[in-house]
């Protein structure tokens, strides 16, 4: 159903790592790395472990959506409740994409850790890819737990819908992973990166209609909402929980956002690493 959603192309065209052919006159070049992918996988594994240890990220992406679910779940019929659950799951998932990437990447760039990595066979691209993977893991965790609340709590969504959220929302979170990578490349201090992350998180969630159903917006604000990826992510999630059809148009717009933000992040990181 969501096959047209592809991860943002942040990993494409990366700098050559261990596969680089040595030039002539390299008598000492016999030591080849064992398996080219091992360093990147090792780094991704470390990133995933760091994500699980990060209480703030879990708080924002799991606890807050569940709390808001409790606060808002007073009125409405069964379908309203299912739509609310979908919105909150989407809200948590996009937060996962943002919080695992932006502020942490800025901190590591500013502290010189990424520079240290550049002096190793692990390219900094692996660090960025690792952050992206951590963002998707966090999105999956959020979708899984918030979805579980929907499956076994009062909302009573189907198991298919629960699984559907776990598949679709991490794919949708590629948009905020791209945004987070862009934030990570753009700010000079972790504090401003944190601020920009919070601002875009709240802005995208509120204006995209994840907190208040977008059909309750004034007309002009609905026009704004329809441009934002979060609106379309919400539409996809709501279609999954209420048993509707996932519109391909929504998927196309989400994919477009992922490509644009991922491309911008790639350009920003390339520029950053050649200057420093």
């Amino acid at each position, binding site marked *: 159903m969501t096959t047209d959603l592809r991860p943002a192309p942040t990993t494409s065209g990366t700098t*050559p*790592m*261990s596969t*680089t052919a*040595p*030039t002539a*006159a*390299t*008598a*000492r*070049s016999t*030591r*080849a*790395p*064992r398996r080219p992918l*091992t*360093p990147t996988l*090792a*780094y991704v594994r*470390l990133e995933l*472990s*760091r*994500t699980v*240890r*990060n209480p703030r990220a879990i708080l924002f992406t799991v606890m807050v959506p569940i709390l808001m679910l409790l606060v808002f779940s007073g009125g409405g019929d069964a379908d309203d409740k299912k739509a609310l659950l979908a919105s909150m799951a989407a809200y948590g998932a996009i937060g996962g994409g943002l919080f695992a990437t932006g502020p*942490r990447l800025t*901190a*590591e760039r*500013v*502290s*010189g*850790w990424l*520079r*240290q990595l*550049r*002096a*190793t*066979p*692990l*390219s900094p691209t692996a660090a960025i890819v690792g952050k992206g993977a951590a963002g998707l893991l966090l999105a999956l965790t959020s979708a899984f737990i918030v979805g579980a609340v929907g499956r076994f709590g009062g909302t009573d969504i189907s198991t298919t819908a629960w699984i559907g959220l776990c598949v679709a929302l991490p794919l949708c979170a590629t948009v905020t992973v791209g945004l987070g990578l862009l934030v990570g490349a753009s700010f000079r201090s972790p504090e401003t990166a944190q601020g920009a992350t919070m601002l875009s998180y709240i802005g995208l969630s509120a204006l995209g209609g994840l907190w208040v159903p977008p059909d309750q917006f004034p007309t002009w604000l609905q026009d704004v909402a329809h441009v934002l990826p979060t609106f379309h992510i919400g539409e996809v999630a709501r279609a999954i929980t209420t048993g509707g059809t996932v519109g391909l148009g929504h998927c196309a717009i989400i994919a477009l956002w992922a490509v644009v933000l991922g491309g911008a992040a790639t350009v920003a990181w390339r520029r950053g690493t050649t200057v*420093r």
Partner: protein
Amino acid sequence: MSPTSPDPSLLLDLRGVTQRYGRTTVLHGIDLRVAPGEAVALLGPNGAGKSTAVSVLLGLSRPAEGTVSVCGRTPDHAVAAGCVGAMLQDAGLPDNTKVGQLVSLFAAIYPDPMDPRRALELADAADLWDRGSHELSGGQAQRVRLALALVADPELLILDEPTAAMDPQVRRTFWDALRGQIGGDRGLLFATHHLDEAQAVADRVVVLAGGRIVADGTPAEVAARAGGTLLRVRTEAVAAELAALPGVRTAVDEPDGRAALTCSDSDRALRVLLETYPDAREIEVRPADLEDAFLTMAAEGWSATPATTAPEA
């Protein structure tokens, strides 16, 4: 060999490397070489260009002029192939990780690493394995960074102030262990403020000041060229008067009230000294060591000493 074709048998071969930041030239055509099995100390005052030289040889910045060859390759390729490993001075450690995880990560990154626990042990940080990266003191973080470089166990190891966070007793153990570990054909380039370390550990000493190589030779050669003989004496005369004596290059007042004279001709200086200042006593004469040489070079404004190979202009 022409200055543009690097020697592939060397682990490190910098030729005529010039680097500028904006309008400031921080390296003026330096040559720097490390042969297999060689330990080279890179010395120099702060701001001499040591960090810039390290950046250039790791491919972190591209030189404006000159050629750089690391393990017979370009710096980028050498770094990617894992034949060079480096400890950078000021890199922060990422949060939400444990020390053991970080060192293991670096072991997974390099083609031929040493055991992660062994690397921590060498760096005097064996007890930090389970420690969170955010719980480390400055000195502990420094030693963990050292372990990250050591675990790579590369052909060419670059260490920037490796013992800055160690006790004197531990420093000695560290160097003994490191020499044992990296013996054979591996090369070591290290920067240090402890000149006794350079004297004891380095096969060759390169002094960088103001972006130029001002001395390059064995510790004994550099000490002799720049220092000559050191003469210590207690007398009523102050250093400025003693500096005027024949055969004396520089003179400084020492904290214990004696004066330290660096002499190009200590015999002559001593004869005149005893004639001119009969109160002279507690006289000590010994060959200058690296530390004395370093102080002399600093006092003379870091000009290249005549006996050293002058850097190409």
